[in-house]
């Protein structure tokens, strides 16, 4: 508010000095622009507050924090340089099997690979099935989307029950004469159980992206390929998939970013166990900060996780969309 009268009086005053002339030149159409700018920033104030404080400041704060040793409440933060990183990398190069952080990294890599591949394929299949469905398309879309909107906590509770040794999943397995494991208490099966649950919820969410993309495909091309005698599979393989590349990349990238940050089910269903087999980096970051009060170390883990996600996404882009570097 206070800047507005200043701005307008400056603009209306004759440009005596060089400085004044320069300012007038910069402001262009004087009064209007200053007013519009002020209004615009008033409209933006709440957003800029959140953007600056909770997104930009915290990101920078996080990077800075990773260079400190912080245990809130006990001692003053102490600058330790790259020691937090050094500690993590020493663990990696000496005995990663003993370091909970690197165990969590190994877990999440398995998790991301399995989940992203399966959820992308499943999402595409769901979308394709809906694409060729003629009766009740809208109803089926609604039904398929339901796993995506139920909360991770509610589904965790439900699957806690479905996965119990005498639960539905083992019952279904027993129908085909497989005796199912105690899913969530078996170090071999706990992580796959969480993968399955995640694929179930996320495939539905990503189906929507493929549906939107399939709808936008140029119909003439598909018709032309049918006229040329291509069968459904050939059309799909040589026309549809190449045209879907940008969407496939989007789904893979969003899926990767999301899966790398898996937390809810790991905390809720297994709390990282048994034997750290479902410990994820985000859960380990949470533990390091809020159980062990190693905030600096936790921040260093966050930064490493971010860098890994970033690199993986870039590699994926190169692999899936080699021609899209101009965007």
């Amino acid at each position, binding site marked *: 508010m206070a800047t507005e009268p200043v701005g307008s009086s400056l603009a209306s005053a004759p440009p005596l000095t060089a400085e004044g002339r320069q300012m007038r030149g910069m402001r262009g159409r004087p009064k209007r622009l200053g007013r519009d700018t002020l209004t615009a920033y008033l409209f933006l104030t709440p957003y800029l507050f*959140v953007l600056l404080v909770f*997104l930009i*400041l*915290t990101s920078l704060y996080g990077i800075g924090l990773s260079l400190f040793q912080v245990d809130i409440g006990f001692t003053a933060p102490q600058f330790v340089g790259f020691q937090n990183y050094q500690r993590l990398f020493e663990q990696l190069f000496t005995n990663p099997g003993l370091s909970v952080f690197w165990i969590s990294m190994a877990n999440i890599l398995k998790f991301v690979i399995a989940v992203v591949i399966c959820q992308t394929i499943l999402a595409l299949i769901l979308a394709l099935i809906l694409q060729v469905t003629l009766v009740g398309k809208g109803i089926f879309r609604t039904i398929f989307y339901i796993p995506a909107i*139920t*909360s991770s906590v509610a589904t965790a509770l439900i699957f806690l029950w479905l996965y119990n040794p005498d639960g539905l999943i083992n019952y279904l397995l027993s129908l085909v004469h497989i005796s199912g494991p105690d899913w969530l208490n078996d170090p071999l099966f706990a992580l796959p159980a969480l993968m399955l649950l995640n694929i179930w919820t996320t495939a539905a969410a990503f189906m*929507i992206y493929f549906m939107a993309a399939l709808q936008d495909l140029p119909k003439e091309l598909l*018709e032309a390929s049918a006229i040329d005698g291509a069968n459904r599979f050939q059309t799909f393989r040589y026309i549809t998939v190449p045209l879907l590349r940008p969407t496939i990349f989007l789904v893979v990238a969003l899926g990767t970013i999301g899966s790398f940050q898996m937390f809810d089910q790991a905390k809720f269903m297994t709390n990282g166990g048994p034997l750290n087999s479902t410990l994820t980096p985000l859960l380990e970051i949470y533990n390091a*900060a809020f159980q062990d009060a190693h905030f600096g170390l936790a921040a260093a883990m966050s930064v490493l996780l971010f860098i890994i996600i970033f690199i993986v996404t870039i590699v994926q882009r190169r692999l899936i969309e080699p021609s899209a570097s101009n965007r």
Partner: protein
Amino acid sequence: MAQVSTQAAVQPVEVAREARPERHISWWHLIVYLFLAIFTITSIGPLIFSFLSSFKSMSEVLIFPPTIFPRTWITTNYTTVLGDPAFLRWILNAFIYAFAATVLNVLFSGMAGYALSRLNFPGRNLIFLVTLAVMMIPATVTLIPKFLVVNDLHLVNTYLALILPAMVQPFSVFIMVQFMKGLPKELEESAKIDGASIWRTFYQIILPQVRPALAAVAILTFQGAWNDFLWPLVALGTRDMYTLTVGLFYFKSTHYTEYSLLLASSMFNTIPILILFFIFQRYFIEGAVSTGVKG
């Protein structure tokens, strides 16, 4: 039904009809409907099965082989859950968080979107670019510092700790910009001639034009806040302040093997969102797509 669908499938590609026998097409549709049936069961089966089982007794819920319908329908699971005063408080807290975040997001992202898409001012492109960039920052990176900032502001264990960071989110602003960009310039020009202020132009002329965007933002925000688990877990400290998701986590720890209670309790988290989804389906899906697909 089969006849109608076969005809419709063949219509657009007349040539294909001669090339392929009719039987081939019906075989194809059989597969499609088989898949539809399978995915229908896997999509809603677990939820329906859990809902039915939430009316079973504690022993029946663990019977092997499982029963689909309860032998005797009981409501004690629900009365036990609701008999816990803390549980009602958690529902209230979750509602406060979700409602406040939704209202503020709609208002503030509408305002920000209006400025970024309809007003001309220095710094506009920069702010929009930063918006796109921060949408890419994983929440992981900001979790610890966000807690420390909230801690420094002495907001830990308050509603503000939940609401303040969530009150306007980059994805909401992004949706608003995308929708408002497409509106014709004449809208504001005629408003200006009528002597309307910018604020009035915003809420009487622009906002009504982007109702689908407002709905999408409202729904995505409500869903996000209602289902949020990590941030409330970090930011809240005492039992009476927990939101439903965090409350359910502690509820689970105290009733570990009482699955019938857990199922009943999970319904309080699921059913409100399902109801919203059935009412505002279109906006759920439009919103989800518009946050992901960038111009």
